[in-house]
């Protein structure tokens, strides 16, 4: 029967080619626009650490004085940690792994003569960073906690930077010059770029290139290397001492907690720590302000999707809705016009169900064609997004789930659109229609 219905649908659609084309195009445009925006939002809010994100948490303290009112441009002052707090959490060692970190933008001077110096983005962090985030190494390894304490001049390079600086072979053990200081290379990572970069400062670009180098945070503080990120202070602010000031937040902190018990324990630890600091007179706000966010919860809290993109998604969905209304109206008119034909089929013994199936198949054919054109249009839309200057632009690619989702959405949309017209059409009175003719 299905084949026969398909043939009937083909004949019926070929009778009105322009209208069929317009319906296919309308559903294609609606689906294409919606899927473009859904894909962009999907890649922007994707899990950056599949398999690991459930164990990663970021602790947040509230060391701000009671009356503190920051500038909205500087973001939430309490979203980062001060140096003393970060060091205290690090030394307490209450999590499976923990690392403090901050972004840095350092001048790199290739040793080759004639090569131009350039700036590279990297991270100042502590020993656990690599194991906690599962950074893949090509050669060598990270540094130890002892080297953190010793403020060792060691560095881990990304594959790209190591090739650019040293040509790539026998890199471990060689010296590189970063920010005017010499560092010994202890490891080379494979190019590693979680997307979004969940562990960076709120002011950093979340979807751009990954870190090109990693060096010990203690060394960076010791050498007063340039930091790429917000310094938010509420006490005496001296450029010279702000890195270690107890009243300036600038550090990000992540911990690995494997079991719910550990998570609960760490949460309590943060509150206890805050209470202790309050007793010492350093903190003024309630200790229960201390928070522990899971990775995905933190990304949701940071609200990475720009308002404009959200608006564009709604526009696309609204557009799809209008296209659907349009198709419902057109199919309704089309099916009702065939009341005569339907009545003949009914009089010859077709059940309402059969008619409903027949018309449903016809709408599904439109849906499949619309879905196919929707896929093409979505590819075009994603291409145009990739031309945008935003840092997330290069991510706008469709993956297999989104591809299947597009087709499913198209067919669901057209079946839904065909539902009302088909139901209406299969209720025609055969006798009345036949008599009228």
């Amino acid at each position: 029967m299905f084949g026969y219905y398909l043939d009937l649908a083909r004949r019926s659609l070929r009778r009105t080619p322009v209208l069929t084309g317009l319906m296919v195009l309308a559903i294609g445009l609606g689906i294409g626009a919606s899927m473009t925006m859904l894909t962009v939002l999907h890649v922007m809010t994707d899990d950056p650490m599949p398999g690991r994100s459930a164990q990663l948490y970021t602790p947040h303290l509230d060391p701000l004085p009671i009356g503190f009112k920051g500038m909205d441009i500087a973001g939430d002052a309490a979203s980062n940690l001060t140096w003393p707090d970060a060091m205290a959490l690090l030394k307490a060692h209450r999590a499976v792994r923990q690392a403090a970190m901050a972004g840095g933008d350092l001048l790199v001077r290739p040793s080759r003569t004639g090569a131009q110096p350039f700036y590279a983005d990297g991270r100042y962090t502590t020993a656990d960073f690599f194991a906690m985030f599962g950074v893949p190494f090509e050669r060598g390894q990270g540094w130890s906690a002892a080297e953190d304490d010793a403020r060792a001049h060691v560095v881990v390079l990304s594959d790209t930077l190591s090739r650019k600086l040293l040509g790539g072979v026998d890199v471990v053990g060689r010296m590189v010059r970063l920010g005017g200081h010499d560092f010994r290379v202890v490891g080379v990572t494979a190019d590693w770029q979680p997307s979004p970069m969940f562990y960076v400062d709120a002011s950093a670009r979340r979807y751009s290139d990954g870190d090109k180098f990693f060096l010990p945070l203690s060394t960076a503080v010791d050498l007063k290397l340039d930091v790429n990120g917000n310094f938010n202070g509420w006490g005496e602010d001296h450029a010279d001492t702000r890195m270690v000031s107890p009243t300036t937040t600038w550090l990000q902190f992540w911990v690995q907690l494997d079991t719910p018990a550990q998570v609960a324990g760490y949460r309590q630890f943060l509150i206890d720590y805050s209470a202790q600091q309050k007793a010492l007179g350093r903190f003024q706000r309630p200790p229960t302000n201390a928070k522990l966010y899971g990775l995905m919860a933190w990304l949701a809290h940071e609200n990475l999707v720009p308002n404009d993109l959200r608006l564009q998604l709604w526009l696309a969905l609204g557009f799809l809705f209008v296209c659907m209304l349009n198709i419902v109206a057109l199919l309704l008119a089309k099916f009702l016009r065939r009341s005569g034909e339907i009545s003949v089929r009914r009089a010859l013994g077709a059940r309402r169900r059969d008619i409903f199936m027949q018309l449903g198949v016809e709408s599904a054919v439109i849906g499949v064609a619309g879905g196919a054109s929707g896929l093409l249009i979505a590819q075009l839309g994603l291409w145009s997004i990739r031309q945008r200057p935003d840092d997330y632009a290069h991510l706008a690619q469709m993956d297999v789930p989104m591809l299947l989702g597009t087709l499913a959405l198209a067919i669901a949309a057209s079946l839904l659109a065909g539902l009302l017209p088909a139901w209406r059409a299969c209720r025609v009175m055969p006798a009345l229609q036949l008599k009228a003719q």
Partner: protein
Amino acid sequence: MHFRHIVHALRHHRIAVSLLVLEIAFSCAVVCNALFLIGTRLDRMHRPTGADEMHIVEVVVRSVAPGSAKAIMAQTRTDLAALRAIPGVTDVSVINQPLFGSSFSASGVSLSKADNAPTIHVTQYFGDAQLAGTLGLKLADGRWFRPDEFVSDEQLEGEGATVPVIITRALAEHFFPGKSAVGKVIYAFGTNRVVGVVDRLVQPRDYGSAESYEYAMIFPVNLSFAQGTYLLRVKDTSQRDPVIRDALRTLRTDGPLRLVSPRDATTLQAARAKYYRNDRAMAWMLVGVCVLLLVVTAVGIVGLTSFWVAQRRRQIGIRRAIGATRGDILRYFQIENFLIATLGIALGMLLAYGLNLLLMQHYELGRLPGYYLPVGTLVLWTLGQLAVYGPALRASNVPPVVATRSA
């Protein structure tokens, strides 16, 4: 004509008519709000900065080797002299934050020394004696800085500093409504007496509320190249590209090795275009959505009316046979469409203002102006009439003889 008859006939197509009404209503709501959004984007993109944007180029230089503050300052003076010697350049200055740049520097400002005095955050420009001339600022009140008032940034931030300040007219209005700000004192870096008011100068980037966009302060500070950006004012617009080329060459050859990249040299006009490129992209996207929505709606009208015409061929034939003119038939479909469109527009305008209220909650957006109602109504009426004309014309061409045929 006979409204009653038309309404009566429409009742036979209740579902199709309500779908069409819904479609028109929805398009109307979305298009009205989209046009309004486009308007606000365009307004945003065309806000003047107060600077003479067409005649300014900027160059960022980054030092490679650490040097003493004194040496860097000396190098800056050499640079300034060399840049001023470039043909076509009239003024050169170092500014701490260029317009449409990536940095934003601000301080808390209040009208009293007390700790709990209300404070607002205002962006601050530091620049030397040629800054006002380079930017092309217009003085509204008071005077420019005197040559002996220029200090270093340490002096500005030092204990008990009393450096004078020039503020924008908008900030003056905020602090001293209805009065002249000249001679008054504000507290930003120690105690700062207002010596002048400029007509307009805006924040380098958008931050804070819409009215604070025009709040800015200028302090007389001599900066080194490492602390800021070179601004060059050219005499003639066409000289901007050659001046950038010359400036890059000058900075590369003068003094020690520094990072001088063509990427860090741009005209202010290009910086503005880059700053607003997302707004522009959004505006075009909204235009696209509007056009598509209207086209889809028109297609719906054409398609549905065509079906109705085909369905009613016999009735049309009969009406023609009993005396209706072609014009009568044409007008019948036109009035029918007019009724449907009016219903759609009425519902659509309600939806439009509802959607506007929703958008106002989530975006910084004003209320939809009242004139959208008549304009939107006219546009959609016209669209409906244009869409229905083709099918209606075909209907009017149905010959009376159709009445005599069966089906």
